[in-house]
């Protein structure tokens, strides 16, 4: 479903945002265009300072773009102040009003919209139920836990039934277990309400597990937009491959291309097939990416050979760091079994075999 192009809820067209003046100008967003579909869980993913929060603030209306348009269902909302946009935000710090109760917080938006009291009451009750906070409706926001505050912030932003809900790293203040719980909760809420969610995070795991589509950002630009599977398995650029999960980079010469496959000759001399994007021209100095779980260590010969440098135990699996004979580092992830040890020791001479379809040629 998410892969079907639907009607777009938010369309960002050629948006630039420049801070500072004169020589001190910095482009926080450098001509960004993206179309976010209705009912989509869309994630802006990138390291801090990549421009993801700036883009969110432009959509919310806390900042105005220096150039470009932001369309909400076809209408340009870029010049509108935040209180005139049918878009609500869940803030990173929650920004709950400390002088109001939980119920008053949730009802605030509806009250500002001039909704009748009875309607507000009913809607607040509905929201309290949705986020399972009925029992604490009369509490002050300072008297509830972080996880509960998070739910109230969600309910408050959902209560006015916005066209789009913006979430600015809303889970970053929660501890690990609660965060996992809330990830599932958020997916459920999105499904239940049918509202478009735009979610900002720097946590790649969070992005992969929750999103319908992800836009990976770096230095004010969107590098790649795609489903979690696309982003993880078919990274277009080195940055994307590096930022999402762990990756091995190998230098190879591309000698032939055909049928979406490239013939790559590795430094070791071995030749493997790698996935390649359309329009890629053969060249001598290309980069291949191989995920650590897509390679295997063998005692004898493989596509590559090297020496075991370090073995790191992770509980579910073990990472084996290998120094290849070509000088490149390479990591292999091996699922742990009940039998003790991973079968290798530091200093072992090993071979690395790369599975079919495991390698991919990067665009640059």
């Amino acid at each position, binding site marked *: 479903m998410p892969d079907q192009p639907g009607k777009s809820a938010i369309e960002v067209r050629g948006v630039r945002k420049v801070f500072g003046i004169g020589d001190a100008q910095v482009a926080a967003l450098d001509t960004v265009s993206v179309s976010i579909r209705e009912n989509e869980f869309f994630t802006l993913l990138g390291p801090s300072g990549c421009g993801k929060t700036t883009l969110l603030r432009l959509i919310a209306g806390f*900042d*105005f*773009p220096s*150039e*470009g*348009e*932001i369309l909400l269902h076809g209408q340009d909302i*870029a*010049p509108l*102040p935040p209180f005139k946009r049918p878009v609500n935000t869940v803030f990173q710090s929650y920004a709950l009003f400390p002088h109001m109760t939980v119920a008053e917080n949730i009802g605030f938006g509806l009250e500002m919209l001039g909704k009748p009291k009875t309607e507000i009451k009913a809607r607040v009750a509905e929201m309290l139920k949705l986020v399972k906070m009925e029992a604490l409706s009369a509490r002050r926001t300072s008297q509830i836990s972080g996880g509960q505050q998070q739910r109230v912030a969600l309910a408050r932003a959902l209560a006015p039934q916005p066209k789009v809900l913006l979430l600015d790293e809303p889970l970053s203040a929660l501890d690990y277990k609660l965060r996992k719980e809330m990830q599932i909760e958020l997916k459920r809420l999105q499904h239940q309400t049918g509202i478009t969610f735009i979610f900002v995070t720097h946590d790649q795991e969070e992005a992969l597990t929750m999103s319908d589509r992800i836009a990976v950002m770096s230095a004010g630009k969107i590098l790649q937009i795609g489903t979690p599977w696309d982003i993880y398995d078919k990274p277009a650029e080195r940055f994307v491959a590096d930022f999402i999960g762990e990756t091995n980079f190998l230098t190879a010469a591309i000698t032939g291309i055909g049928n979406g496959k490239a013939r790559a000759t590795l430094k070791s001399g071995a030749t493997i097939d790698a996935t390649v994007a359309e329009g890629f021209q053969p060249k001598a100095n290309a980069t291949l990416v191989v995920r650590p779980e897509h390679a295997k260590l063998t005692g004898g010969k493989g596509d590559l050979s090297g020496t075991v440098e370090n073995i790191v135990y992770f509980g579910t699996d073990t990472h084996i760091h290998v120094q290849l004979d070509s000088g490149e580092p390479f990591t292999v992830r091996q699922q742990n079994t009940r039998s003790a040890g991973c079968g290798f020791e530091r200093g072992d001479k090993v071979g690395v075999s790369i599975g079919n379809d495991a390698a991919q040629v990067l665009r640059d």
Partner: protein
Amino acid sequence: MASAEEVAKAAERRDIRDRWLLSAPALLIIFLAATGPLLIVLVYSFLTPGPYGDVKWQFSPEAWISVFMERDIFDDTLSLAAAHVTIFWRSIKLAIVTTLATLVLGFPTAYFMATRSEKTRDLWLFLITIPFWTNLLIRTFAVLQIIRNEGLINTVLLKIGITPIQILFTDTAILIGMAYVYLPLMVLPIYASMEKLDFRLVEAGYDLYATRFQVLRRIIFPLVKPGVVAGSILVFIPALGAYVTPSLLGGGKNMMLSNLIELQFGQGRNWPLGSALSIAVMVIVMVALLAYVRNAGQSEMRHG
């Protein structure tokens, strides 16, 4: 429809305009009833005194000359105005000594307060805040009752068979009074810096073989120096221009600058001289403030 860029620019302009409108009433009343009149004082200091007070609108540098000089009535020669110089010197000296006295007493007091437990600290702060906000006149009056000839000190001295001493109407009386009324002004800013002091640094000092005095001098004092400087300025400025304390405790003979200025607007009927003296006081204060700003800027650079 206007583009987002134009809207943003217009919003920014409107914001700055609103901020000026919002601050206008405060700025206006301060200009009318504080800053503006100071400029008039400057103008008055260059005019000729009127016969019954006020001024004649005639330029004259005489007031400024007579701040430090005296013109001989017969041959018009100038000589140093001993009375004025004495008063200037007394005021500056008393203000400096008051500052030092409050520092010597206030620093340990602030240290004591800052090293109390979290709970009792507020109580000590409260105890120092009460005199701070109590009417200065009442506190000066309280000191007066203690040090006057029939006051507590002399009564006690008499009881134990020692000859009473004359304190009231001396420079010492002014000093005691000013140190008393301005002490909280010294303690509060030092306490404010001291409260933020990280005592793990003190611990580190002791760990690196410093003695108690070395820790005090090399670690604690440099870190709370901004508070010390702020406190010194807060004491020095009002002490220099003190009016109530010297006029109640110093008597007619031991004038300070404020009394000299008042005299020019009263019996002296020399408003230009009073104005020139006022400007002179301001200049001394400005120099002190400038020294403070420089010092504050430097320590900010060092610690910022």
